[in-house]
Structures are given as C-alpha cells and as structure tokens.
C-alpha cells in the first residue's frame, strides 16, 4: 500500500472510531455499553501484541501478564491513593517496568524467539498460581487485600482531581474508546518514526540490522516495554469494564486468546488485531449463551486451522484481495515472488496502519 492510500485509510479509521465513540452510547443499551468497554480493553491488549509481534517480531505468548499486572497495579494503587488518576499512571508504569526487566533478561541473554514465547507464557502461569494463593489476610499491599482466588473489587474511575466524582459506565465507555483510538494512532506514529523503521528492520533480519549498526537488544527492549505499558493501560480499562480483577487474567485461556486475536486479525497490521479481538469477543459472547459448545474447543480449532491452512489473517487477506482486484499486484507481486524463491524463509507482507 502506498502512503497516500494508507493515509486515507487512517482517516477513515479515525472517522469510524470517533463516530462509534459518540454514537454507540446513544443507540445501544447500557448493558451492551458496559460489555463493549471490556471488549475495548481486549482490543487494546490485542493492539499491544500486534505492535510487538507484528512489527518487532517479538513472539510474546504472555502478553496478558502485563495486562493483568496493569489491572492489579491499578486496583491496588487506587485503593491506597483513594483516587484513580495517579493509579492509572502507576499501572502503566508498573506494567512497562516489569516488561523492561523481563525483557532485559531475555533480549540481553539473546534468547531465541521460541524460548521467548515459552518463557513469557511461563511467567504468566506462575503469576496465576501466585495470585491464587494470596487469599490470606497477610497478603495485602497497603490497604488493599489481594483476595486470592476471588480477586479484588476495582474502584471505578473518577474525574481527575476529584475522587468523589465517579464516572458513570457510559463515561467509562467514552474514556475506553478514546484510549483505544489514541493508542492506535500512537502505534501508527511509532512505527512510522525512525525507531519503528529500525524495529521493522530488526524483525526482517536481525543480523543485518545489527551489522548496519543498530543496537538490536535495546530496540527490542524499548518496544517490548512500550507494548507492556499499552497492555497495562488495557488492564486498567478491563478492571473498570468488569468491575473486578481475579487471577484468571493470568490463565492459559487468556494468554491463548490474545495470540488468537492477532493471528485471526492479521499479523503485521495494527487494525487487524483490534478487529480480531472485537470479532472473537462477539463470537464467544454468542457461544456462551449455548453451553453445549466449549469455548476452549472453538478457540483451539480456530488456532489449528489458521496455523495449518495458513491464511494470513483477515485484514491482510482483504488488502491482498483489494490490491488484486484493482490490478495493482503486477510488478510488485512478481518481484515479491522472485525474492521468495531465492530465500527459503517465508516472506510475509506487512502493511502499516
């Protein structure tokens, strides 16, 4: 996709986003709006993984760890501070800092991507086991009881500066949707910046990027920390959407779900993971009403089918179809094919935005 067309797409996305932000609470019922807030939190989490996996080539299986850490940090600090504004900042910083520390050990140890995936997943599962065991009264941070298996109630967002002015669920929806739009455009800006181009170069060929003179480890670390912070912000929205945070955010099911959003929506795009998250949230919601089909089964089949049959994800497929229809594939596609023949590595197409 060339830059002009990409920009018109971005404008379209922005318009759709803002219309949805303003229009949804006017049309939909309150119950749907509260559910949508949770879905938006999921979409922001998907965006964070779409950023680091799709553009940095960092295969993180435990992105939901940072999501959960953000949610817990938000709740714990909101209870201790008595207000939520600084709690949001703390949540994002704690999640980003944890990602940075974990990333230091992995990137500076030059752990391979398969190991990285498994290690991040393991971290998530250990958090799950750890938080489940914190039910005793001795497990508290400041005034906040961690609550073990039952988790903790999340204080709702308040207007900055006035802790007694608590936002209504509709207002929380506005905040969430605005956060998603801002997060999306921040990511677009990031991958168009010099830093983002280096990240993509590292994804394409780590050795080459290093020989050209870029510090691969540092770039990956920074991108990973940014992804962690974004996931932490998603955790804050999630805690508000559900009103409660339990150790289940760290479980295997949520870790798998995050990966599946990105695979279904399309790696190498930013809008794909978001749409994947919304789509699967809707699918699981409608499956949940008929209990005969198990969610794990559905997700597992989706994952196996997408990996074995190898569709590129919904958004890249649509873009390809569009390009072919408009006859734009011509010279570029031929060039791409020739390049593919030369190198045995699977070449994926990537689009910004």
């Amino acid at each position, binding site marked *: 996709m060339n830059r002009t067309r990409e920009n018109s797409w971005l404008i379209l996305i922005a318009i759709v986003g803002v219309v949805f932000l303003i229009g949804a609470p006017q049309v939909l019922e309150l119950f749907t709006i509260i559910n949508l807030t949770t879905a938006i939190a999921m979409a922001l989490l998907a965006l964070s993984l779409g950023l680091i996996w799709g553009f940095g080539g960092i295969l993180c299986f435990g992105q939901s760890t940072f999501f959960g850490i953000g949610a817990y940090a938000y709740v714990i600090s909101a209870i201790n501070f008595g207000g939520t504004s600084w709690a949001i900042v703390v949540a994002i910083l704690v999640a980003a800092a944890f990602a940075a520390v974990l990333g230091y050990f992995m990137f500076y*140890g030059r752990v391979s991507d398969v*190991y990285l995936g498994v290690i991040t997943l393991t971290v998530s599962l*250990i958090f799950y086991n750890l938080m489940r065991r914190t039910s005793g009264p001795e497990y508290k941070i400041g005034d906040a009881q961690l609550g073990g298996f039952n988790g903790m109630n999340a204080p709702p967002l308040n207007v900055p500066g006035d802790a007694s002015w608590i936002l209504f669920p509709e207002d929380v929806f506005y905040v969430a949707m605005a956060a998603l739009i801002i997060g999306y455009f921040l990511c677009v800006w990031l991958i168009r910046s010099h830093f983002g181009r280096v990240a993509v170069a590292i994804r394409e060929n780590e050795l080459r990027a290093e020989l050209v003179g870029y510090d691969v480890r540092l770039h990956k670390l920074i991108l990973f920390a940014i992804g962690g912070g974004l996931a932490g912000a998603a955790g804050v929205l999630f805690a508000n959407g559900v009103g409660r945070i339990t150790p289940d955010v760290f479980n295997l099911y949520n870790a798998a779900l995050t990966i599946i959003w990105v695979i279904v929506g399309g790696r190498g795009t930013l809008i794909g993971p978001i749409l994947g998250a919304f789509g699967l949230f809707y699918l699981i919601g409608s499956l949940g009403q008929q209990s005969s089909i198990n969610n794990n089964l559905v997700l597992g089949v989706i994952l196996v089918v997408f990996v074995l049959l190898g569709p590129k994800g919904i958004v890249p497929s649509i873009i390809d179809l569009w390009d072919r229809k408009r006859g734009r594939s011509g010279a570029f596609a031929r060039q791409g094919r020739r390049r593919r023949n030369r190198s045995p590595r699977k070449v994926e197409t990537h689009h910004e935005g």
Partner: protein
Amino acid sequence: MDLYLALALQIVYGIANLVLISLGLAIIFGMMRVINLAHGEFLMLGGYTVVVSTNAGLNIWLAMLVLAPLVVGIIGVIVERVMIRFLYGRMVDTLLATWGLSLVLIGLVTTIFGAQTATSISPPLGAIHIGDFTSSGYELFLIGVTAVLSILAYCALKYTRIGLIARGTMQGAEIASALGVSTSRTYAITFGVGAAVSGLAGGLLAPITGVLPSIGATYIAKAFITVISGGTAILAGTLSASTLLGSVNSVLSYITGPTMGEVGLLVVAIVLLRLMPQGITARLFRRSL
C-alpha cells in the same frame, strides 16, 4: 537428624517430580527442537486414562504403568502424523499448532467428562515413618519410578539401535537421512515415546493431584522452564535443571510456604537463561545425552 532426613527426602522428591513431568517434553524437545505446548494435556489425558480405567475395575498398577503410557503414546503418534509433520522447520507454527491442540483437548475432555474433578482415586501406598516424621510411601515409589525411567532412557539411547538412530537424527537430521534413516519415522516414534512418557507421568500423578480438564496448566509452567533451562540434551539437561530448580523450589517452599517456591524457581531459571541462553547443557556437560 530426622528433620534433615525428612527435608532431604522432600528435596529429592521435588527433583524427581520435576524430572517426571518434564521428561516427555524433553524427549520431544531434544529431538525436534520444538516445545510441545500440549504437554500438559498429555499429562492430563494420562491422568484421565488411569481414573476412568480404575473406576471401570482395572488394577490401578496396570492402569498407571501400562495403559496410560500406551493410550497417550498412541494419541501422540496420531497427532504427529495428522498435524506436526506438516510443520517441520516452522518452529513458531509448530508451537502455535500444539497450543491449539492443547485447547482442543481441554475442550473435548470438558465436553465428555465435565469441568469438575472426575471421581478421584487414592494413592495405593500408605505412609512411612522417619523417626517423628511421616512421609508418603507413594512419593518414595515415584522417586523410584523416576530413577528407573531415567536409567531406562539412558540405556535405550546409548545401547539400542533405535537409540543410535535417534541420537544420529538429533545431531544431524540431513546426514542421518542421507545414510538411509527415515527421519520422518524417527520423528513420529520420538513424538509417540515422548507422549507415552508424559502419559505415564500424568497417570502416576493422578492419585496425588486428582484430575481436571485444566490440570495440565499446573504442570506446564514448571515443565517448560525445566526443559528450557536444561537445553537440548535430553537426560543431562532434564536432570541437571531439575536438580537445580527442584532444590530451589523445595528449600524455598520449606522456608516460606508453597507460594514463593514457584516464584523462586522462575527467577532462578530466568537469571540462568541470561547467563546460559541455550540452557545448561549448551555450556556444561556438552557431550552428554
């Protein structure tokens, strides 16, 4: 004195437990360089095999030591033929596909047996006494089984023809294939053996932990971290990593309770990987199995 003996027994059991739950994964990883994310579900299937067949009237020893590995081993071979073999050389896709498989297996077992614990079975051996302390006889039995299993694996790799072929394929699949070894069949058999060992481990642990469709998740964090810390040498890697991590886990659990045990295990493993990114056996014990 008795306290130290009891504590030492706990540490040895902690190590044996890690070896037991990791060995099947290590066999597949050592051979194909692929982490099988459905490993926990292989353990879970082993557990269900034992519980279901024992409740149907089969002798518990027969169910644990023969039926569980057999059933899960066959499932492993089928999985390899139907799914894994199409993904050789695509490591990330293999990981994702086995993760999908893991979800499918959890979903299927939940649909068939329900999400709750199936009727549990009790450990077939009673308690033993060390001075003032009691210890479970079944844990001693598990330590024995793990030792026998490790020795068997060593002998099979070192002294049999199949073991020779397996080691050759591990060191250089292309050369082995040029010398007339069917690497595809070797991989299928290895995957089956790895699954069978996992099934055996799951069956043996079922009387202690009970079985749940999602029980796999409680094992895999430890199993993954053990195998990755160990590196690609199947036995030396699993044994050295289990010894280190199992001791840390047991000692920390003894001092601070079970909550910190796993966290300590993870922290040690991550620091270890910073120092030795390819695992212990890439640096130490390099020529070992």
